[in-house]
């Protein structure tokens, strides 16, 4: 068992195409406090590369990425 991640906000971004997942998550993360975690759920395969790139440039941290049956879950900690 890995350590538990407490999720403060869930964002359903399923079905959205580029650039919407990144645009929405960049807005959504500003709605939680620094240190809190959001779970972003996407179906866009491009987000596998896009989310880490967005996180690096915006100074946030992706704690974990889960992927099953075309659904990708990102656990992102707001750091900036």
């Amino acid at each position, binding site marked *: 068992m890995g350590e538990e991640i407490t999720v403060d906000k869930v964002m359903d971004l399923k*079905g*959205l*195409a*580029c*650039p*919407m997942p*990144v*645009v929405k*998550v*960049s*807005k959504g993360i500003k709605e939680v406090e620094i240190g809190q975690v959001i779970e972003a759920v996407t179906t866009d395969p491009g987000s596998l590369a896009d989310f880490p*790139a*967005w996180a690096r*440039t*915006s100074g946030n941290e992706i704690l974990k990425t889960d992927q099953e049956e075309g659904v990708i879950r990102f656990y992102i900690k707001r750091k900036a």
Partner: protein
Amino acid sequence: MKDSAENKREVSPQGEAAKKMKNLEKQMGELKNQVEALAEASPENKIALIVFSGELDKVLAAFIIATGAAAMGMDVVMFFTFWGTPILRDKGKKVGGKDFMGKMFGAMLPKGTSEVKLSKMNMAGMGTAMMKSLMKKKNVASLEQMLELAAELGVRIHICEMSMDLMGFKREEMIEYPNLTFCGVAKFMEEAQNSKVQLFI
């Protein structure tokens, strides 16, 4: 005489230290100026896009990059020129007082985002219609939605005054967009000079 010689010897090391300090201060001042000049010349976290094309696919690409960059925290400026200008006309607005050429251009060029066509495979509009329905199906944002999103994200839009004049467009027939700016090449260059990324689409 003896007194003054002694004084001189005593004063001189202090004088030297003071001189050195002054030199150092001067160098520090110069260094500070140089660092400030460098900071001023270094690019900001900004992207400047030239939207020269007036086709659906190319303008969509420009908007995807613009909104994506804004989401990544960048300052974004889009400079619409030549074939890109008619896209920013408002379909619902009518203006009079145009000369013959102005009327011709006005009628032949797309009026607003809804009238733009694909650069390839347009097939008399069939290709564009198919692409639009495919975009809807695949949840790709339309140009109209992109424009709205861009405004929401604070993407700045500049329009080339010379293109407007050339094609006979009037300011009153352009879309409502926050802080829409009409300008020329100098304004774009000022923005481009301190941008990290510059694109021509």
